[in-house]
């Protein structure tokens, strides 16, 4: 039967698609939201009020949505840090540490090159962030390529080394002499601060994240590189025999992935914090891992997952203010949402760990 391509029908179909999508969303995540409501109820809070607060503070207003975008920037970049290596079956659990080292490198640049004009300084800081996170991850890549230590283990362990290293610097060499007891670096000069848009906190990092995502999608689908990566991902032995330098790929892929997380660290210190602090990230690197895993490394899926988890993260800040709940309560909702995805048996996307 011929399909009538009338606009009305396709509109209907699109409507149906949205309805089906919405239904699947409700079936999948509904239980998570119900369980969280029960948890809040038991804790003596009004769950309807809590959800209303989350909604009105995130999706209901332009400013609220801008805050969701702000959270999405580090989440998308750290998700890419996981997704890129996952293309050749490498498991990068070290986004958090790579983010910290990227932030450390960028901070060093912002403090020592403060005299440079903005147009020169910002690209240098971005490059420093990328290089910092990239080298940190490439170290794990080398260990893996040599067959010494699995990248899963080393990236996991290096997270804490990285966080401790940042602590060492903000309590020591990079400590701001003017903030006597606070462990933090000196404030960045205005030239080291990323521009923001429309009077919100949404900053230039969004452009970088979207650009990186588009390049990732294009490289994957359109280039010889992407093809080779898919070949390695599909069958390591076959790829080796057809002359693809696998060890080199492992290191480069880890470097680029770690670079993404490093970039996230740079944008956080430059645009959000304005200085280096030990509490730089509330676990963005780990959340990024879960986003990439939820989406199986697919670009649009990662955007969708990042929106959802960014709303929850931003919602946590709101609950802290309006309901006097601890800020980390949002991680319960996040965990429940993830449990819902994890418990789904028919995952056609396979177990690509990214």
């Amino acid at each position, binding site marked *: 039967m011929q399909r009538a391509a009338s606009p009305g029908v396709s509109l209907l179909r699109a409507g149906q698609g949205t309805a089906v999508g919405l239904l699947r969303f409700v079936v999948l995540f509904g239980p998570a939201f119900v369980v969280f409501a029960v948890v809040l109820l038991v804790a003596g809070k009004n769950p309807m009020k809590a959800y209303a607060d989350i909604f009105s503070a995130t999706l209901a207003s332009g400013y609220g949505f801008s805050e969701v975008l702000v959270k999405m920037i580090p989440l998308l970049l750290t998700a890419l840090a996981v997704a890129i290596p996952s293309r050749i079956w490498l498991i990068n659990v070290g986004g958090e540490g790579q983010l910290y080292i990227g932030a450390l490198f960028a901070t060093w640049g912002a403090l020592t090159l403060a005299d440079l004009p903005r147009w020169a300084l910002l690209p240098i800081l971005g490059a420093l962030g990328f290089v910092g996170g990239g080298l940190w991850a490439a170290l794990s890549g080398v260990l893996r390529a040599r067959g010494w230590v699995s990248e899963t283990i080393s990236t996991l362990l290096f997270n804490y080394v990285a966080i401790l290293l940042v602590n060492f610097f903000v309590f020591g060499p990079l400590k701001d002499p003017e903030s006597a007891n606070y462990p933090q670096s000196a404030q960045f000069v205005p030239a080291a601060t990323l521009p923001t848009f429309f009077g919100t906190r949404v900053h230039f990092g969004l452009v970088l994240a979207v650009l990186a995502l588009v390049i990732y999608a294009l490289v994957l689908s359109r280039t010889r590189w992407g093809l080779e990566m898919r070949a390695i991902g599909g069958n390591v032995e076959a790829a080796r025999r057809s002359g693809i330098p696998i060890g080199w790929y492992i290191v480069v892929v880890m470097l680029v992935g770690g670079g993404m997380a490093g970039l996230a660290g740079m944008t956080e210190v430059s645009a959000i914090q304005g200085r280096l602090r030990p509490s730089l990230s509330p676990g963005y690197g780990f959340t990024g*891992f879960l986003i990439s895993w939820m989406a199986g490394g697919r670009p649009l899926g990662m955007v969708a997952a990042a929106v959802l988890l960014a709303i929850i993260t931003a919602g946590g800040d709101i609950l802290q203010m309006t309901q006097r709940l601890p800020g980390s309560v949002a991680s319960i909702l996040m965990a429940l949402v*993830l449990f819902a995805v994890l*418990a789904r048996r028919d995952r056609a996307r396979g177990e690509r760990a990214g």
Partner: protein
Amino acid sequence: MSAPLLVGVVLGAIASGTAVLYATLGEVIGERAGIVNLGLEGVMLMGAVVGFATTVETGSAGFGVAAAALAGGLLNLVFAYLVISRRANQLASGLALMFCGVGLSALLGAPYVGSRIEGLNEIRLPVLSNLPVAGLMLFTHDLLVFLVVPVALVVWWVLFFTRWGLALRAVGENPTAAYAAGLSPMIVQYQALLLAGLLGGLAGAHLSLAVARTWAEWMTAGRGFIAVALVIFSKWHPLRAIVGALLFGGAVALQLQMQARGVPISSFLLDMLPYLLSVGVLILWGGTRRHAAPASLGRVFRGTE
């Protein structure tokens, strides 16, 4: 090393090594059954908060310890359901469990922030505790400290000298073969993770009831991940885990002593030791294939499908 410094370091090493050792032993059991749990941090936090709250409410640290172990075990069963029954990705499930434990413990603990308890009281072993130096160093501690090395020995014995331990290791090495040999990998793995959760809960209890004697959000401060590192460092062996935990505890204690004496040494650099040593040990052993990791670690058992 002068005597008071030595005493200080040993006392500190035992105090901070105990919790990590309980957690490491739990993770050893789980990983020997083929399951990596990155959510140990969350399990420890649940143990810490439930143990503390129970102690405040009942006035009995003994109830607190029991409740902590139970809470840890229950939370780990959630993880077990995901990775065993639903065959979910272990790393992702573990991280989700960590977030769950962080959030739940913060919520449960909020009313107890600032509460103070007597906690686990010190037990002076008769006769032995009167020895000079060693009496204070080794024989005057709380119950959980005295129990931790025996627990390690029991775990070692169970894993290597009992039928159940053999079954557990067989499941970790090759679940399909274990299944063919008439074992039920899923049941064994559930038991292993329940046990691991109980031990993780005890680890948390020691932190909140004996070391800190207060509750603070995220008071484990990464010790769950240290335990994961120490499992590798100890080559999945319960007795080597004792060495690893003492090493970690020693690093913590040394830095506290140094700081108390005004020696300018960064605690953060010392804190890196357990992580760096674990990676270093893996490199020294020359490759991921040759060390003693259970062969099916992290893989999903597909059953008979």
